[in-house]
């Protein structure tokens, strides 16, 4: 059972519920709250989320406690891996759609994605995008509004190059963007894989399964997996996907020359359906 789907999706994937794109356009500004540094802290980027946690690593007790605190933050922020198909459905629901630069890449590798080094790769969704000029530091170099068709092409382009598609909700369940992520600069993947902080990146609704009849053992899928779920099995000379480690991003599906990998609904595996 997917908790977010029960709560915000009426049993269906929560990110396909149009309600979750409808963050109120106007909100009452509470005068004192607006001055709270928390908003600005978040705009500084992901550095503020992770640094205090890692600084505690010398003290295992404090580290464990801080991690537990983190896991309760699901109401504020939640991320999940989605397949290309689901992401395409999402850009049909969401309006407006904009291309923005990736704050993780900017923070951890100092690339601006200003069109010279790398084009803007993330998609910002929703009416908040009309107000991007308010925060020029976050939207450095501006934003680019896309049509639904353009957004689909954009997703396809980066996904086929090996980026994992993830969605981010800021103020759960309101979906703020579709990210195209890459370890190690993606903070969400990194938090989950290296520090086992779960809510920043939940596993997707599917898992990737190999058809051994079709697999020729070229190993191209194993090169692409960012979650360490795929390896070339020497014994059988075929790829092996560990379904318990698979996040269902589908990067391997699109790199397979034999079309031997399929995304299958997680629900169909009784031991995986509770694994997020």
């Amino acid at each position, binding site marked *: 059972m997917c908790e977010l789907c029960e709560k915000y999706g009426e049993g269906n994937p929560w990110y396909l519920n149009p309600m979750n794109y409808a963050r109120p356009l106007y909100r009452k500004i509470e005068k004192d709250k607006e001055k709270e540094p928390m908003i*600005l802290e978040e*705009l*500084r*980027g*992901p*550095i*503020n989320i*992770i*640094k205090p946690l*890692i*600084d505690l*690593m*010398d003290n295992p007790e404090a580290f464990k406690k801080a991690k537990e605190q983190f896991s309760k933050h699901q109401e504020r922020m939640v991320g999940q891996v989605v397949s290309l198909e689901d992401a395409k459905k999402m850009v049909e629901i969401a309006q407006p759609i904009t291309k923005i630069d990736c704050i993780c890449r*900017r*923070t*951890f*590798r*100092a690339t601006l994605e200003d069109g010279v080094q790398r084009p803007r790769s993330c998609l910002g969704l929703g009416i908040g995008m009309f107000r991007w*000029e*308010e*925060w*020029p*530091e*976050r939207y*450095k170099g501006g934003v680019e509004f896309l049509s639904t068709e353009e957004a689909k092409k954009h997703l396809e382009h980066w996904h086929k190059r090996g980026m994992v598609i993830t969605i981010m909700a800021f103020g759960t369940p309101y979906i703020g963007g579709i990210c195209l992520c890459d370890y*190690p*600069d993606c903070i969400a993947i*990194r938090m989950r894989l*290296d520090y086992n902080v779960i809510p920043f990146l939940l596993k997707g609704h599917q898992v990737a399964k190999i058809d051994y009849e079709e697999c020729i053992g070229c190993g191209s899928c194993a090169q692409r997996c960012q979650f360490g779920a795929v390896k070339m099995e020497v014994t059988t000379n075929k790829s092996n996907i560990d379904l318990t480690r698979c996040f269902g991003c589908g990067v391997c599906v699109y790199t397979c020359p034999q079309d031997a990998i399929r995304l299958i609904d997680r629900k169909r595996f009784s031991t995986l359906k509770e694994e997020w």
Partner: protein
Amino acid sequence: MLPVVEIDKKKCSTPFECKKCLQICPQAVFAVAPTKVERFKETDPENYEVQAVFRNKCVVCMDCVKTCPTAALRVIVGGYD
């Protein structure tokens, strides 16, 4: 004990433009962020700051120390550098 990376902020004055340590680190330990973000205003380059975030991943290869053009970095393990 996690390695400590000391960054001399006086010597490291334009980290975002330089970005040498951020891009050479095999473990992607570093991060660069504005020290403050204001509404309707871009942050000045001197208000950026490099921090060693993922210190537990640091393998003390010293690539960052070697590449730093202003010798602003020190990596300290167990009190020694």
